[in-house]
């Protein structure tokens, strides 16, 4: 069949053209981006091959720092994946109509993040050949098993959430797009499961939407709380805290909001969607980010004030190291540059414009990733019993190139999944609203 030609595709409205044309055309930019991601993934695969061949000794993890950036990356990905529930559940149930265009992006990011979380945890295992033992020999008493259960549940729910909201739009693509390859046509036809805007179908979909919007919320809270229990059920300074569950969950929402801002910016720019992701959206996202960051700041203060006041034993050593010791530069960058400064800056409207808020969001995300590093690694370097008689290298943790390659390739996987999903499906929901809604989108039907 002939090469798809955007000129031949008929769009009835400008809206349709805007939102669907990227499904047909493939720009050079896109190809370069994919190539870049594939290179990163390839480097990661080389690193992982070395790890499979020689064992985890190729990493910098040793008997004291027995968990490293794989685990902190895992926590980061689980945190990011909560953003799907933020938009599809919390904001939706509170009738925040302005957030509607962003629900698709958030659900895509949620699915991609939870897949990457599952992959990175397998990378961290010493014997990945025995991965299925967690099913055949599982012990229900273990927090890791709870995490396995809740991650698989959340993955399924996130995919369902994405799919349910996507269904009418896939049907639209199936019906209207002609200039696409046959495999894409087949894809739309199969995944649209015979949707044809029948009132019964619409009613059922509504019902399912409501059920999902309510059920995803406890699952989302549970997933990050259970991940926090991987740390809170141990006796390590910084981990042995009753505050860890809310601390993690609030941090997750904040980091997720910042990721959405970054995604918004780049999608808006490259897909030329400024009419749909407007300045107003950036403004409101900025305010949302301030709100979530304030909640996170509150939990941060709670997390550190108690131990710092008492300075008990190894907990005191750990706090000292974070505040004024080896990890102080990273710690204060994260707390001030990644948390306090964004809150202050985002109070002012000029900072809630797209470009400034993008830069602030990048700092927030960087701070979030480093914060997870600070949660996992320094605690392991302060066990109750003194570290003696071991090699100097045991006292420091400097990730090796294999670990960095694998970590960056995990980000590349995340971006690759997001990019492919955006390429295949409309990224802004093509839906209609009742009259009198807050932001008036034209009741154009494609």
């Amino acid at each position, binding site marked *: 069949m002939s090469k798809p030609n955007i000129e031949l595709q008929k769009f009835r409205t400008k809206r349709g053209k805007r939102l669907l044309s990227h499904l047909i055309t493939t720009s050079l930019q896109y190809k370069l981006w994919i190539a870049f991601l594939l290179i990163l993934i390839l480097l990661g695969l080389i690193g992982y091959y070395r790890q499979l061949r020689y064992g985890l000794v190729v990493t910098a993890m040793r008997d004291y720092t027995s968990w490293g950036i794989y685990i902190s990356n895992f926590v980061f990905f689980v945190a990011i994946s909560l953003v799907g529930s933020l938009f599809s559940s919390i904001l939706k149930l509170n009738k925040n109509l302005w957030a*509607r265009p962003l629900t698709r992006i958030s659900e895509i990011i949620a699915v991609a993040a939870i897949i990457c979380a599952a992959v990175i945890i397998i990378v961290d295992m010493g014997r990945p050949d025995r991965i299925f033992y967690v099913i055949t020999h599982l012990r229900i008493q273990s927090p890791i098993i709870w995490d396995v259960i809740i991650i698989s549940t959340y993955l399924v729910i996130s995919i*369902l959430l994405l799919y349910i909201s996507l269904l009418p739009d896939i049907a639209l693509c199936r019906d209207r797009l002609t200039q696409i390859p046959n495999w894409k046509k087949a894809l739309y036809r199969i995944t649209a*499961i015979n949707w044809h805007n029948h009132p019964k179908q619409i009613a059922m979909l509504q019902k399912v939407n409501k059920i999902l919007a309510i059920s995803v919320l406890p699952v989302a809270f549970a997933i990050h709380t259970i991940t926090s229990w991987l740390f809170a059920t141990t006796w390590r300074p910084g981990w042995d805290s009753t505050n860890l569950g809310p601390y993690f969950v609030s941090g997750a929402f904040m980091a997720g909001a910042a990721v959405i801002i970054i995604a918004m910016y780049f999608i808006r720019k490259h897909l030329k969607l400024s009419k749909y992701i407007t300045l107003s959206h950036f403004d409101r996202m900025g305010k949302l980010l301030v709100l979530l960051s304030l909640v996170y700041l509150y939990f941060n203060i709670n997390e550190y004030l108690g131990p710092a006041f008492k300075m008990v034993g190894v907990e005191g050593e750990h706090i000292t190291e974070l505040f004024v010791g080896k990890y102080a530069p990273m710690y204060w960058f994260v707390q001030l540059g990644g948390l306090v400064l964004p809150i202050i800056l985002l109070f002012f409207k000029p900072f809630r414009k797209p470009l400034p808020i993008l830069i602030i969001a990048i700092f927030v995300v960087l701070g979030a990733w480093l914060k997870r590093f600070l949660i996992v690694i320094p605690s392991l370097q302060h066990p109750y019993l003194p570290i003696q008689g071991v090699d100097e290298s045991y006292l420091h943790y400097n990730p090796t190139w294999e670990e960095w390659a694998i970590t960056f390739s995990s980000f590349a996987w995340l971006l690759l999944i997001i990019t492919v999903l955006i390429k295949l499906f409309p990224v802004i929901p093509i839906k209609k609203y009742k009259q009198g809604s807050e932001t008036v989108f034209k009741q154009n039907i494609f």
Partner: protein
Amino acid sequence: MKSETKLICYFLEVIMAVTFIFGANTISYGQDDLQDAIVTLSFIDNNEAKIIQAKATDQDGSPIEDLELYFYVQRTFSLLPIGDFFNTTDENGIVEIPFPEDLPGAVGGHVKIVVKILESDIYNDLTLETIKNWGIPTPVDQFEEKRSLWAAAANAPITLVISVSGMILVIWFIIGYIIFILYKIGKIKSDVHSQFNEENYFKDVIESF
């Protein structure tokens, strides 16, 4: 000359050999003299105390005085000494030691009591072993695994099993229901209602949620 040397050598040899043999005999002379002692044990169990009484006699039957006897109870890896530091027989050849009241035994309370003569100058070493059920019986049920957080997978605490299974069942039932509804959506056939027209579309508005 030769025969003289030969003779001297021969005599030297004999003298050396004899000296050696006698010397060896002299050294071990004392050891040969060890006698066998006979020790009889009797176990007295009155209501106040349990007592082990040992009577040492030599081979003629006469009691041995001032003989040190060592009393032990056999434990898993070694012998546990009981009694005093020195348990010496009196003029009747009798020594009594109390058996500890609180010593645990096997399941039936059995303990193996060992009495030894060790490194005595006069008598050969001797070991006597007897099994008595004077120990405190060990209860058997403590060796079964109870339900706990650290038990094997099959012995998880009941509350945990029920609550986790309950939550999994609820959420996956909801997921299953959703998938079932999706399946039903796919089954609905196209009819006149779903013909696309502006009117219908405005009427059956998808509610904002």
